[in-house]
Every structure is written in structure tokens, then in C-alpha cells.
């Protein structure tokens, strides 16, 4: 690869972004694997059994990081969308597009693990609780962004339309979050609600934090990998791709 062909300072071009992403991926992947291994070790072998919930609480080590990532990634996606709309920079749109599936995946995982936690704790797979409902709506919002992008076949238009949607959606996220809470608390007494986490042992907290860090690094790696695919698929006809025979 000849570096003199590339303008290293022009970060807003896919041409520069592609190799940069390639260089970063291994680092994120390594950190993520180390964190996940350490987190699992602490979560299963070091952290003690919870006196109330027994060992079912161990779901927390995937559930909470997944839930956090699902919300965090939406904000990051909207951020890239805003940058893309503001600066008309193609890589920003590509980043937004690359984040959405991972965000949706974590949303799904939060819902799934939550349901598998709810069954032993509440005796039901699903209740219409504030947090659960707002997470479900977050899944719809991810789906909306992805489907809108998939439904428009002019890429430039698809990018910008789904960026507008992502931005509008991010305004909606806090509104949903709070409105659903008020809805629930105002409407009925606490027949069922997520009990606040019992005071957790320090090891539990640490394990959860490390797992969260691992998920975070994983998201970064996967997003960059996806953005590399997107760049290749889209820039197929650009001369730089052909000349450099990307690796």
C-alpha cells in the first residue's frame, strides 16, 4: 500500500478512513476479549451468590451492559448522523449506518436477557413496566432507522433520510424514558416493578463494570469492521479502491 496516494489529513474521506479503521480493529478486539474473559471469571467464580435472588442475578453481567450499550449506541449513532448532516461527510453517515445493527442487537439482547431474568424473579416473561417498555420502543426506533435506510435505494438519499430520523429519534429517547416512568407511577400502585438493585457486593459491581467495558470495546471493533465493509461496497467504483487493491 502506497501511502503517498492518500491524503492522511483528510479524515473526512473514506479513502483515509478505511485503513485507519483497519489499524484500530485489532486493538479494540483484544481489549474486548481480555475484558470479557476477566468479567466472566469474576462474575461466575469470584462474585458471591445473591442472598435474595440466588444465582439468577448473574444474568446482570450481560443484561446491564447490553442495556447500557443499547442506549449509548443510539446516542452515538445520532451524533454521527448529525455530523454527517452538518458537514456533508460521507464517512459519518457510514458510521451511523454501521452502528445501527449493533445497537439493535444489544437492544434485543437486553430484552432477551431481561425476559429470562424476569421469569424467575417476577414469574412472567414480560410485564409492561416502564423500563421494559421504553427499551422495546428503542428497538422499534433502531428498526425504523435501519428499515428506512434499506428502503431507499439511492444511497445518498438513504443516508440523509435515516440521519434525520435518527436525530428526531434521539430527541424522543429521553421523552419516552421519562414519560413511560410517569405513566407507570402515576397510573397504578406498585403491583410489579423493577426492584432497585440490592446493595451489591463490590465484586459484583466490578464484574459488571468490566463486562460493560468489554461490550463497549466489542461494539467499537464490530462497528469499524462493518464500516470497512460498507466502504468497500459503496466505493467499489472509486479509483482509489481499485488502485490500492485494498487488503
Amino acid at each position, binding site marked *: 500500500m502506497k501511502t503517498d496516494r492518500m491524503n492522511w489529513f483528510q479524515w473526512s474521506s473514506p479513502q483515509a478512513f478505511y485503513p485507519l479503521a483497519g489499524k484500530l480493529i485489532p486493538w479494540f478486539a483484544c481489549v474486548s476479549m481480555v475484558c470479557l474473559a476477566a468479567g466472566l471469571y469474576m462474575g461466575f467464580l469470584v462474585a458471591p451468590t445473591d442472598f435474595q435472588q440466588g444465582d439468577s442475578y448473574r444474568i446482570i453481567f450481560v443484561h446491564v451492559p447490553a442495556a447500557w450499550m443499547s442506549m449509548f449506541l443510539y446516542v452515538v449513532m445520532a451524533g454521527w448522523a448529525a455530523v454527517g448532516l452538518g458537514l456533508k461527510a460521507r464517512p459519518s453517515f457510514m458510521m451511523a449506518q454501521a452502528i445501527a445493527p449493533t445497537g439493535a442487537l444489544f437492544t434485543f439482547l437486553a430484552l432477551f436477557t431481561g425476559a429470562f431474568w424476569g421469569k424467575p424473579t417476577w414469574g412472567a*416473561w*414480560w410485564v409492561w413496566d416502564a423500563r421494559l417498555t421504553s427499551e422495546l*420502543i428503542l428497538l*422499534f426506533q433502531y*428498526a425504523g432507522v435501519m428499515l428506512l435506510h*434499506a428502503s431507499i435505494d439511492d444511497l445518498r438519499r438513504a443516508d440523509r433520510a435515516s440521519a434525520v430520523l435518527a436525530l428526531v429519534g434521539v430527541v424522543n429517547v429521553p421523552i419516552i424514558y421519562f414519560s413511560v416512568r410517569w405513566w407507570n407511577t402515576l397510573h*397504578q400502585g406498585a*403491583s410489579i416493578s423493577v426492584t432497585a438493585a440490592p446493595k451489591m457486593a463490590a465484586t459484583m459491581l466490578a464484574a459488571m463494570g468490566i463486562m460493560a467495558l468489554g461490550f463497549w470495546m466489542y461494539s467499537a471493533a464490530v462497528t469499524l469492521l462493518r464500516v470497512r465493509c460498507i466502504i468497500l461496497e459503496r466505493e467499489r467504483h472509486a479509483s482509489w479502491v481499485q488502485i490500492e487493491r485494498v487488503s
Partner: protein
Amino acid sequence: MMQGGLAGAVFGLIQRDLLLTWRRRADIATTLLFFVIVATLFPLGVGPEPAVLRTIAPGVLWIAALLSCFLSLGRLFATDYQDGTLEQMLLTPHPLAALVLGKIAAHWLVSGLPVVVLSPLIGLQFGLSGGAIAILTFSLLLGTPTLSLVGSIGAALTLGIRGGNLLSALLVLPLFIPVLIFGAGAVASSESGMGAEGHLSLLGACVVLAIPFAPWATAAALRIAVE
């Protein structure tokens, strides 16, 4: 694959409609998500008490299915009408009703069937028991074809005529009501231990009645619209 004759034309039409949908496969996902979202609106509007939700669940699911069918009916003939394909359909040597049946079948495959497949999951969210979920799904399987069939009459009537709009809504929505009553009723009566056979066989009767009659009425409406 080349195939002549009526069967070829009808299957060709189904194939074309399915191909069109496949081009826009996001459509299927959209139908599904619409169904899920409408179902989700109800707990949000009505409140989260599990007992209330369980009571209204069959009605809610049926109404959500009905609405998502209704919404996708809008595009059953509208684009064919606008771009002139409908005129071409009338100028084929095949009976129009058969072609219409093909289009309806394609419509059900992409809008009715996915709803049926997803309904157990939503049933679970509303806290329905396993038996109720099974009956609900079966009633949707039996009932949604009727919705597509009967709805196509309305879609055809709304094509050309001014003010025919109102007429067709008046005609079609009441026709949906029996399907809704039998469908939701099947679940309710099985829950209360009365057995769902009666309701289900009525649903079956509806679809058996609709299959010969609806395409014929739709074809008549289409001829009027194009003229």
C-alpha cells in the same frame, strides 16, 4: 420458466407481486413491526394491569391484525391503477377474477401470514396462556385470508369513483366485523371453557364464502374504475 394459459398468467401475477415485495423485502418487516407496535400501543394507552391486559388481548391482537391488513390494502391496486398495469390486466384473455385472486393471494402471503406467525409472541407479552395462544394463532390463520379477500373489494371500489370512497368504507368495514367477532370470540370462549369450535367453524365458513364471491365483486369494481 415459461408457462402459458390461465394458470401461467395467475401464477405469473403472484410471482410478479411477490417479486415486487421481495424487491422491497423491508415491507414484510414493516408489516410485522406495525403489528407489534399497534399491539404495544394498547398497554401504553390502557395501563399495565396484567388482568385487564389479558382480558383485552384477543381483541387487541385481532384489531391490530385487521388494521395492518387494512393499511397494506391501500397499495393492492392503487399503483397498478396509476401506472396503467390495471388496463393491461383487463386486456388479457384471462378472466379478471382469477387474476384478482392471484393478487389477493400474494397480498395475504406478505401481509397476513407474517402477522399470524408473529402473534404467539405478542400473546405471550400480554400474558395469555399456551392454549389461548394456540387458538388465537389458529383463528388468525383462518380469518386473515377473509380480510384480504373482502378488503380487496374496498380497495377496488376506492380506485376511481369520487365519493365511492365513503361507500366502500361503509361496505367493507362492517364486513370485517363478523371476522373480528368470531376470531376474538374463539379465544374468549375457549378461555371460559366453552370450546372454540363453534367460532372457528364460522370463521372457516366466512373464508369459504369469500373465496368465490370476493374476487368476482372486486373484478366488477375494477372494470368500473378503469372505464
